[in-house]
């Protein structure tokens, strides 16, 4: 009898304990709905050519520190690019113009344009005649194939390497991406007309080849060379997003692994149940914040590039879709401060200026309802 009673009590206590554990687990999940209910879809495949990530990281810093040095080096870079691409500009029509914020220098004539982002030393080149070319010109001519585009890009890159504008060992040619500009047309509808929509055949108008930059087996986020070829294979545009960098001698040990970074990333996402986070890329990279900003160094960091989809409550299978967002988690301890963005400061001032000039924004709705 006693044994039976003891068994029953034991059962009751065990089931109470299990209930308690389950309840507290639910409570924890309820506190973190993002962790429990949000679905993370990791879609990224690291380019094989990169190899294994080392646990010793070199810091990478810009060669040119002062604004003056960057400006001089940038102008020199434009000259080198002109020579490499064999661009002959008309001297009597050439304009060299620095914008009032000293962020951009433009060198252009009636056909060609070079745009230098002074803080980063990155350059955009456009043959405006080809780049703006009428899309229906040479309508019967086909654009080159992906393989042809890669070969033509290789030729252009070789010229840039010879001109010391880029370095061969920092090009990840195996990860080259090719895309196309596509064009189409269709007649509009007459009032009340339905069901005769007939768009033309899709045409390819140009081809774009992007070759990313790597340093020591890590991708440099935001850097690489993008080349636009017209139908005849002529260079219509070239983005030389390539800072002048040098690698420091000492290495720093990795302080963070991908698993820890991933946990931090997932914990940071606060979205309602049923949301999706599509992670386009998660990798250890050198992070370049912007072509419009100067930097003291490129942060070695885990980057998560992602899009969120949040269900719309009163609609089935429809979502609020975010722009492509990113978060970074520094991977080494270096104790350095990044240069604050001059441009961000300027934009904040513009925001304030418009806030002050237009009181309807200070009191939401009030001024507008009196319109």
């Amino acid at each position, binding site marked *: 009898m006693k044994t039976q009673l003891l068994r029953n009590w034991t059962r009751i206590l065990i089931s109470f304990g299990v209930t308690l554990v389950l309840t507290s687990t639910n409570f924890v999940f309820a506190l973190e709905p993002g962790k429990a209910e949000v679905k993370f879809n990791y879609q990224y495949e690291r380019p094989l050519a990169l190899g294994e990530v080392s646990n010793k990281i070199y810091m990478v810093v810009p060669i040119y520190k002062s604004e003056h040095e960057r400006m001089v080096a940038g102008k020199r870079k434009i000259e080198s690019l002109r020579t490499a691409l064999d661009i002959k500009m008309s001297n009597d029509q050439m304009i060299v113009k620095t914008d009032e914020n000293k962020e951009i220098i433009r060198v252009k004539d009636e056909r060609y344009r070079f745009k230098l982002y002074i803080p980063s030393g990155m350059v955009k080149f456009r043959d405006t005649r080809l780049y703006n070319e009428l899309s229906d010109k040479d309508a019967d001519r086909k654009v080159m194939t992906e393989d042809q585009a890669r070969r033509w890009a290789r030729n252009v890159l070789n010229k840039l390497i010879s001109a010391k504008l880029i370095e061969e060992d920092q090009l990840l040619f195996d990860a080259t991406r090719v895309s196309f500009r596509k064009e*189409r047309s269709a007649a509009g509808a007459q009032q009340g007309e339905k069901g005769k929509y007939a768009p033309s055949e899709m045409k390819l108008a140009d081809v774009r080849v992007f070759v990313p930059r790597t340093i020591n087996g890590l*991708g440099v986020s935001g850097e690489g060379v993008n080349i636009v070829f017209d139908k005849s294979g002529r260079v219509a545009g070239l*983005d030389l997003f390539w800072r002048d960098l040098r690698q420091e001698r000492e290495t720093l040990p990795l302080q963070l692994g991908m698993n820890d970074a991933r946990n931090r990333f997932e914990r940071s996402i606060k979205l309602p149940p049923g949301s999706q986070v599509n992670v386009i890329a998660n990798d250890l990279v050198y992070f370049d914040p912007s072509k419009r900003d100067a930097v003291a160094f490129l942060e070695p960091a885990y980057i998560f590039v992602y899009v969120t989809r949040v269900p719309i409550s009163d609609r089935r299978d429809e979502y609020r879709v975010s722009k*492509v967002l990113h978060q970074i988690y520094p991977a080494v301890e270096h104790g350095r401060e990044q240069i604050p963005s001059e441009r961000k400061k300027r934009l904040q001032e513009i925001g304030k200026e418009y806030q002050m000039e237009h009181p309807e924004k200070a009191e939401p709705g009030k001024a507008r309802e009196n319109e």
Partner: protein
Amino acid sequence: MKINLATKNFSVVRLLSSVVLISLLAYDASAREWAVECDEDYSQCGGSNLPNSCDNTDGMISEMNSLGGWVQGWYFKGSNAWPQDWQETATVNGGLDSSYMDKVGKADISVWSGHGTGATNEPNGSWDIAMGHRHNDVCNATSPSSIKMGEQTNDGFGNDGDNEYVVMDASCSAIEGELAQVWQNWGPGILMRSHQGLAFHNSPDDADDRLEEFIENIDDGDSNRSAWLDAGENCFLWWCSNSPMVITFGANSSDSSDRHNNETMRSPRADPPSGWDGHYHWSFIDNGSC
């Protein structure tokens, strides 16, 4: 003598006044207005916050002066950006587009920078501006059901639009398979008599300088089409991630092609396309869809 001088002075004053008046009239005739809305805080209507969404528009308006002839219409951020601002006044209960984003004399270019919407199975023939802040219990403005821009004469929808260019710097805003419904007059969609739509076939990155780059390109001599495609594409890590799209409306195929290739905000065409009928041309860089 005094009388003569006075008469002469009076004539000079009259002449100068006339010159000033004519100049002012000419300025008014050529001036264009920008109307811009953005949001970064999505805690109210749902969605991830967008840290750079309004920096993007701040950068744009800092460049607008360089174009010449463009002045401020509206700049509404956060809780001041209402879905009703885009909804058709004539057909949507509470719609205010004729007061704001399609208002005569205020909105020749109308810009949204923020979230958009997508479906599990795209194209589904519908897209929404997804606001961060709710107004009168509404968080979205939907095309084709409630957004019509630039309508005039006998188009319907109040015939009281003015807009020429629409920028939707948001996800899935111009999926190629649903342009007919969302943008073209088959919906009828956004472009009733607006000349061009500048948007995205996929999700663009949360850049803080895309719209600034767009205006800089126009200032440098590009057509709207080239300027948008150039500014819209962004190469990030191993690939170029954005698929910028330009849709142009014209009275017929030839007019549509001409506008598509040559129209520029440096000197916008004064003549609007046809409201119904007409022709559309579109171009996009295909770096993937939604």
